[in-house]
């Protein structure tokens, strides 16, 4: 259906090709997953299918890409619109019209389908994706999961033979992600649609794939094989595969179910041992962070830089907080205390109020009832200059924090804003992001590097409370591991950390305490191991495999076995 013949793509101004030697075929009716670390050109390969590369991005494409027999060199994206449906990473930038129903019809209108057919397909698609109750809603008012489903629906209505999806579940909570994946599976099984998709969260998608195309590194030719074969050699893999590698299972299990059936022996080996918790359980009593934990150059520097004087007040104290935004009760009666050295994960479905709580903690939103105190001050009444020394937030889009056109200028501005000694921020950048030169433009950094730069900017003011909103969106496993190590060191150095995330594996690795939010209310608050293992949708893969034993991460198991 899709055929790459020795394709290489070189963008204008780049000295070497982004992808090279791409030569594989996706047969009709298969779901092929494109995996690889970030920056290896997954989006380029996906864009080449719909003709957006090179017709829209510029650059040179060598070799040949054919889709349903049409050559993308001679067919512009618009002439492929009836066979290829493409959904990019950000559904909002995909929308052309303003309501759900119009959006679903837009592609068919462009293709000139008869009105009766359009009406029927819109109704079918509304049902298929569970959008019927939202048909008149303006797109801007939908939640992330709903927007993603509308975006998929809008390319489904013209009945394309091929669907190309770039990170369809990265922005979604676990339940919404499963909804979207169930729809995709239905398309493959019932309609014979061919799907090529890229996704970082392999733990969610790898079991649905018929084949995996692995791009091991930039400029390397992709390898194609069954998911089990590819996972055995892939530099990126989900926890279930990692556990399988650790236990030496062959063939590697891809689903929790497969792994559970083989895990009997592993469970026996682990039976006597308890997880030596990598993170101190500070949730119940505010255990002092263990100083011996932080090792290495970075930790030393971070510890020296952290406010040594004990903060008299808690980093964050929230009493019966309610927030109303545009006639919606976003938060209801929240009580919360965060202690120094504690890492708290805020979880819950899209639109549950996680970001609202973080924004209220830095004073971007005013409480409509109740109080918020951050380091003893009310954030919305505190001047920004003073506030950055009490709490720092890295927003969902780290780029929002970066204004300057070079890393050096950004660091100088950060030192100035925070009133820190010159060079403070640059030293942090060196720790977090070794090897980034002064004159790099922040936009040219990768997703993970940009996050690290924003984090360095925020840390320049040494806030005792560090807030992160969806920090792992768009990060591959390696970047995520670096982030986890870094945040652990910060927590060990006494920073209180609060992160809003959909990533259960991240919460399992990092959090001492997990707070579940639903419709603006706290529905669970307790030690991470208790909260996330008790909920099937928030449980990490390792805990599902090894239940009833309470292991959360592969690292814990590895440590216990060694």
């Amino acid at each position, binding site marked *: 259906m899709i055929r790459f013949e020795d394709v290489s793509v070189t963008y204008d101004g780049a000295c070497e090709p982004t992808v090279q030697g791409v030569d594989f075929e996706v047969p009709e009716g298969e779901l092929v997953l494109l995996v690889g670390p970030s920056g290896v050109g997954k989006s380029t390969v996906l864009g080449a299918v719909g003709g957006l590369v090179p017709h*829209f991005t510029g650059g040179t494409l060598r070799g040949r890409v054919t889709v349903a027999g049409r050559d993308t060199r001679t067919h512009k994206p618009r002439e492929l619109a009836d066979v*290829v449906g493409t959904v990019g990473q950000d559904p909002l930038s995909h929308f052309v019209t303003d309501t759900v129903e119009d959006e679903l019809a837009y592609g068919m209108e462009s293709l*000139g389908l008869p009105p009766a057919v359009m009406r029927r397909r819109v109704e079918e698609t509304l049902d298929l994706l569970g959008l019927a109750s939202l048909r008149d809603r303006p797109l801007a008012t939908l939640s992330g999961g709903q927007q993603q489903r509308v975006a998929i629906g*809008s390319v489904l209505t*013209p009945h394309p033979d091929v669907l190309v999806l770039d990170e369809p579940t990265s922005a979604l909570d676990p339940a919404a992600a499963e909804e979207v994946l169930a729809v995709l599976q239905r398309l493959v099984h019932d309609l014979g649609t061919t799907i090529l998709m890229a996704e970082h969260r392999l733990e969610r998608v790898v079991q649905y794939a018929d084949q995996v195309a692995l791009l091991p590194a930039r400029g390397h030719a992709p390898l194609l094989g069954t998911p089990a074969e590819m996972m055995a050699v892939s530099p990126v893999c989900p926890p279930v595969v990692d556990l399988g590698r650790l236990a030496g299972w062959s063939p590697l299990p891809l689903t929790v179910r497969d792994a559970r059936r083989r895990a009997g022996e592993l469970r026996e080996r682990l039976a006597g041992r308890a997880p030596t918790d990598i993170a101190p359980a500070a949730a119940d009593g505010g255990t002092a962070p263990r100083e011996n934990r932080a090792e290495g150059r970075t930790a030393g520097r971070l510890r020296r830089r952290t406010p040594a004087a004990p903060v008299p007040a808690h980093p964050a104290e929230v009493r019966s907080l309610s927030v109303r935004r545009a006639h919606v009760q976003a938060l209801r009666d929240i009580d919360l205390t965060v202690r120094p050295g504690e890492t708290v994960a805020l979880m819950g479905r899209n639109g549950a109020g996680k970001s609202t709580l973080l*924004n209220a903690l830095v004073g971007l939103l005013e409480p409509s009832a109740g109080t918020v105190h951050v380091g003893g001050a009310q954030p919305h009444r505190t001047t920004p*200059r003073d506030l*950055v020394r009490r709490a720092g937030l890295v*927003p969902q889009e780290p780029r929002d924090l970066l204004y300057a056109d070079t890393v050096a200028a950004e660091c100088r501005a950060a030192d100035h804003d925070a009133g820190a000694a010159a060079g403070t921020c640059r030293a942090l950048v060196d720790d977090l992001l070794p090897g980034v030169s002064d004159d790099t433009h922040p936009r040219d950094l990768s997703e993970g590097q940009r996050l690290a730069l924003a984090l360095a900017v925020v840390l320049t003011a040494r806030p005792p409370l560090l807030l992160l909103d969806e920090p792992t969106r768009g990060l591959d496993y390696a970047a995520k591991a670096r982030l986890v190590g870094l945040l652990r060191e910060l927590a060990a150095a006494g920073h209180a950390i609060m992160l809003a995330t959909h990533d259960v594996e991240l919460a399992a690795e990092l959090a001492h305490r997990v707070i579940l939010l639903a419709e603006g209310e706290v529905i669970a608050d307790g030690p991470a191991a208790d909260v996330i293992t008790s909920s099937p949708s928030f449980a990490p893969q390792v805990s599902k495999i090894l239940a009833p034993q309470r292991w959360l991460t592969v690292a814990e198991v590895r440590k216990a076995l060694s």
Partner: protein
Amino acid sequence: MPRSSPPGSSARPAPLHPGAWWLWSLSLGIAATRTTNPLLLALLVVVSAYVVATCRRPTPWSHSYSAFLRLALAVLLVRLLFTVVLGSPIPGTHVLVTLPELPLPDWSQGIRLGGRLTAEALVFALYDGLKLATLLICVGAANALANPHRLLKSLPGALYELGVAVVVALTFAPHLIADVQRLRAARRLRGRPDTGVRGLLQVGLPVLEGALERSVALAAAMDARGYGRTAEVPPGVRRTTTALTLGGLLGVCAGTYGLLTAEGGTYGVPVLLAGLAAALAGLRLGGRRTPRTRYRPDRWNARSLLVAGSGAAVAAAMFLASVTDPVALHPGVVPLVAPVLPLRPAAAVLVGLLPAFLAPAPKEPS
């Protein structure tokens, strides 16, 4: 008429054609230009506001009404302020207050700063400003009642691309405002003041960058979904289209020129009409090049016609009244007289309330 329909769908009558709302509101606005009687103007404002209150649906664009109200108020105040500061050519005897007059050089004859302020001048400015404010409020009503995007969808096929450009521009503004708000919030996170003009200026570049990136992404998405596909048309048709459109536009220009000059009174109207017809035929033929179809197009049903008709009736009645009874529609300023509500035009304005009974907004399920 009771009609059996599947449950759930019966509650939603088909929305009116957006063109009907625009015709209704613009007719009310045109009616407002025919009079300076403050009572009639106030009645027009009340009628349009009542219809907006009963008929508007909870949509993002319906919030624009209050913005138009504020704009109208601002226009009225500015008009009054100009009269106070710059004076007015209206002769008057009732001096309210005498402001200190700035001596101006000779070459600025006719311009005056400060000086006598008469009640007559103020009342004249009030009437005049009120007329303009009413017109603005009527346009605001159209914006609140009809989705501007749907109106653009009703454009003929050949103008479709123009319509899309406008739609994209219209959705761009809210995105831009959201971007500015987000980036100003981010300034707070950097420890910089998030208010003030400087804050706004510093986020300017990132906002524009974001806007540019978004428009490129949107263009790619639209192209990937088949925007701009063209159908093959025989060369004959293509040439005829060009000839008709160009010839028609030339005809329109020549016809308009004829109408406006004194000598061309005879050929003006026929040439204009012929040109218009040719241009429309060209547009229609040009539509063949785009294979687009329309999903659930808005239709002109009886209710739409009645709504548009009620507006037209108000405008027509006001035109008639301005001919037959100009005194009542333009209450005297010199000498000052209290305005009287002329009954027949007032009754005619009330016809404009018809949409409130024809197309009330569906009650929100609670």
